[in-house]
């Protein structure tokens, strides 16, 4: 792909804009496209749009599974005294005498976390939209390396297969929590899930990291090298800035997780002692000495914290884009938005130990990380205020994508603010590992990132499949989910302030955690209903692929380049030359303009009536 890509880009330097000179090279390009075997067109495709859909559909599969797991453990938490005999046809021997096996409960929370964080919100969200939007919005025929991009998906696929298979092991999948802290994750004597289940978890994650790196290198290279003529970094849509910085974060932090996984594999299989020391377990003193479980946590969170920004930044980018489009207003403070993304990206590397205030780490280190952590609230606050200012005096169309974007902002505020409490080392002493933390991150990175994902799917569905998703079903889906999320996670804060520890199979043994049994039941009911609400989306998604209303080229009257392609862009994206870019992506409702949007590829020479004093064509 790279080979055909560069010449066409170069050729775009010549004839630009509306006229479409069909050169020989283009003909050649298209012939190639038609001859493709279906296997290479739909399965082992190197087309970024097909790969994006592969990521999306795999992500949807994982999301259903992750949601199902959460419904199972919410049943246990809501009704700790009940028997679940009726589940034994599905769960088999994990139901023991009508009770959910406590080790299986831990496996459920572990796999729910792993699946949601990595497989859905990293691969499914960033994988889908970075792939789909980067070439389309920067004006490239495809990714820098289509082949590597294809590999990225198939490594993810392989990793998925391994993780999925591990669910059916006799000893159960990994059960040491999604953070897999050793020694629990290192010793099968400690929990059966740390046997084969953990081995498969580590292998799967190693492949997953390979997939992330292959994808990340590609995203970065494409953004840097394959922008169309006139598309300077200062004219990139905020989506691209977000994907670009996300990829950089991933590229710099995932290898550290890989090293942690590798050392853990050594400890598990080859008798080394990186993370293990002074352990007496199952009637035996182990020979490991001198290792530190805390070292693992440093390595894990060195990825783990940037990871939450890897999850949320693509959502931020898409929400910025969708809010501006549907408020028919430029995003407020475009440069501040880029600046805050940069600030978040930088700071995200130096806050990791706020997950470790009470691990026994030196208190001075705790002070430093508290300081750095609370600073990160500043760029996040700037983003929020800018989103609000974007809505102010807009002319808002409530498309489903817009609803989810507004929902995103609301959830991001609600979840983000409690981070100010958790980032405070003194307060974290009480709140650490309680349901306050669970509520916090489910709002700010779980639910908001999901809302970003939904917003993205509803918004770009017409470009993906050439059809529209049903709006009415979308509205129902949004309101159910929005309400559901708040009903689940707001009361969860109360449970957390009361000090309820997370990853507890039941709290009934403690006097301190004896209140809130009704609240937990309520949360469970809300969670399970909200989960079932998602099937409305699934139905809408698959139904609309085949039977949805046909889309037009630019159904949302948007300004970015992807909407200048045909309704369903083929391999290569633009049938003719790639359009050049003359202006920033947010010329909405510009005074003096004929319409309330001016696409990026319209030269200033054609919009004399709306040009601002300093606006002249520089891309000639």
């Amino acid at each position, binding site marked *: 792909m790279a080979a055909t890509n560069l010449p066409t880009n170069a050729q775009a330097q010549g004839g630009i804009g509306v006229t479409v000179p069909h050169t020989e090279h283009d003909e050649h390009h298209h012939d190639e496209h038609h001859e493709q075997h279906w296997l290479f067109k739909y399965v082992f495709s190197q087309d970024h749009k097909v790969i994006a859909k592969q990521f999306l559909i795999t992500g949807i599969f994982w999301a259903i599974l992750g949601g199902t797991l959460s419904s199972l453990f919410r049943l246990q938490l809501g009704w700790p005294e009940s028997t679940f005999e009726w589940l034994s046809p599905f769960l088999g021997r994990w139901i023991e005498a009508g009770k959910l096996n406590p080790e299986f409960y831990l496996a459920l929370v572990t796999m729910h976390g792993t699946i949601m964080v990595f497989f859905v919100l990293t691969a499914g969200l960033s994988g889908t939209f970075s792939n789909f939007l980067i070439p389309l919005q920067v004006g490239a025929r495809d990714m820098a390396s289509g082949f590597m991009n294809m590999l990225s998906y198939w490594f993810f696929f392989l990793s998925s297969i391994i993780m999925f298979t591990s669910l059916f092991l006799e000893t159960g999948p990994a059960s040491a929590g999604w953070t897999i802290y050793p*020694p*629990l994750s290192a010793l099968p004597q*400690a929990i059966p899930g740390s046997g084969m289940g953990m081995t498969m978890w580590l292998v799967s994650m190693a492949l997953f990291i390979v997939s992330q790196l292959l994808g990340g290198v590609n995203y970065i290279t494409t953004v840097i090298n394959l922008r169309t003529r006139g598309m300077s970094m200062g004219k990139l849509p905020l989506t691209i800035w977000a994907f670009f910085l996300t990829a950089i974060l991933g590229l710099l932090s995932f290898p550290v997780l890989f090293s942690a996984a590798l050392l853990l594999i050594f400890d598990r299989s080859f008798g080394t002692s990186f993370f*293990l*020391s*002074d*352990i007496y*377990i199952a009637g035996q*003193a182990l020979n490991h000495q001198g290792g*530190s479980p805390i070292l693992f946590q440093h390595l894990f969170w060195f990825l783990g914290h940037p990871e939450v920004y890897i999850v949320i930044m693509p959502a931020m980018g898409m929400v910025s884009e969708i809010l501006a489009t549907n*408020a*028919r207003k430029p*995003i407020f403070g*475009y440069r*501040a938005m880029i600046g805050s993304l940069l600030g978040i990206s930088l700071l995200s590397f130096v806050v990791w130990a706020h997950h470790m205030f*009470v*691990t*026994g780490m030196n*208190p001075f280190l705790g002070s430093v990380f*508290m300081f750095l952590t*609370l*600073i990160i*609230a500043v760029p996040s*606050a*700037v983003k929020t*205020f*800018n989103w609000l*200012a974007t*809505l*102010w005096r*807009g002319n*808002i169309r*409530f498309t489903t994508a817009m609803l989810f974007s*507004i929902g995103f902002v*609301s959830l991001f*505020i609600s979840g983000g*603010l409690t981070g*100010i*409490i958790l980032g*405070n*080392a*003194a307060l974290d*002493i*009480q709140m650490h*590992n309680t349901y306050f933390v669970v509520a916090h991150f489910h709002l700010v990175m779980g639910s908001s990132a999901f809302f970003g994902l939904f917003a993205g799917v509803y918004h770009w569905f017409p470009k993906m499949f050439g059809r529209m998703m049903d709006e*009415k079903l979308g509205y129902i889906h949004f309101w159910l989910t929005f309400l559901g999320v*708040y009903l689940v996670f*707001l*009361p969860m804060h109360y*449970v957390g*302030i*009361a*000090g309820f*520890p997370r990853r507890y*199979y039941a709290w009934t043994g*403690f*006097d*301190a955690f004896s209140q*809130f049994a009704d609240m937990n039941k309520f949360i469970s009911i809300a969670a399970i209903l909200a989960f079932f609400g998602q099937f409305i989306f699934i139905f809408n998604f698959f139904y609309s692929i085949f039977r949805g209303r046909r889309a037009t080229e630019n159904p949302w009257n948007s300004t970015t380049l992807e909407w200048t392609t045909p309704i369903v862009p083929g391999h290569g994206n633009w049938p003719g030359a790639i359009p050049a870019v003359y202006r920033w992506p947010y010329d909405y*409702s510009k005074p003096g303009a004929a319409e309330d949007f001016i696409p990026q590829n319209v030269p200033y020479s054609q919009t004399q009536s709306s040009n601002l004093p300093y606006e002249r064509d520089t891309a000639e």
Partner: protein
Amino acid sequence: MIALGILLVLVLLLVVFGLLFRLQILTSIFSGSFTRDIGMSNRVNAILMLVFLIVGGAAFAWSFVDSYDKMNPPIASVHGYEMERLFWTTMIVIGIVFVLTQILLFWYSYKYQHQEGRRAFFFPHNNKIEIIWTVIPAIVMAALVFAGWKEWTKITGPAPKDAVVVEVMGKQFNWLVRYPGRDMKLGVVNYRLIDATNEFGFDLTDKNALDDFTAGEVHVPKGHPVLLKIRSRDVLHAVYMPHFRVQMYAVPGMPTKFWFTPTKTTDEMRAQLGKPDFNYELACNQICGRGHFAMKLNIVVDEPDDYVAWFAQQKSFSEQNPDVLAGFKQKTNKLVENEAAAPAAAAVVTPAANASL
């Protein structure tokens, strides 16, 4: 049979929903609203935004007030009160921001809903506003960091010299408790010496360990600083005592600590809560396996006199387990004998070995 029935009902329901959905699409095609860009639904959604703000906000306020008493575990330590103050101060700060931003978000969504013929206000940026709302959060954050930092350094600072020392050791799936005995010094423990009787791994060749005693629950005196030493002998655990606002990991191979001053005896707390069987509890708060949710240890806060009396009654581990002590003696004797049997080495080693005993 019932399962089959439920399945059938579900399938029928899905079919009904499917038909309704088709019907709705067909009617919207005939009425023309199918292809209309912005219809009634825009207005409905805008109103729902406002409804969500008002009804949701009211429900949140009500549920918060309703649960307020339940969500505040009673406080029983000196730093707990200060932490509580810092927590609710921060909550008020973020609460104000929460209320303001959510109101603006939903109000703007309602107010600036699409209107035919209106154009949005082209307002790409304003440096002054942006500087203001960057600087204000920065100042607020700085204040919160400072308050938190002061509290944090106070809590994590060195324990007073006269603090009562208690050691807890986490294991799958319960807690072991050890006191230093009359000499106020904890003896050496070694994980390789652990067995069914010597669960702590006491090294009884260390004379500091001889008067150390274990206990089934933690006793601490009211109004006196307590230094909790924390160990784990297998996987990670965490000591979590919600009433004392204490939390610290138990890490195998790396002893940790936390000090606090209890302010209310168990009896006082029972009277205050009106719960005669109330106990202070220590819970494990780091996932550690099957029994994680049941790793409970009771803490008893005594009046200082009662504590001293309780302490005096305890029998040391070595006294309670004479055969373990004898085992250690035998081992050391054998060591000495072996050294005596090797005369060449004995001359150098024996005095040193004896000295270390």
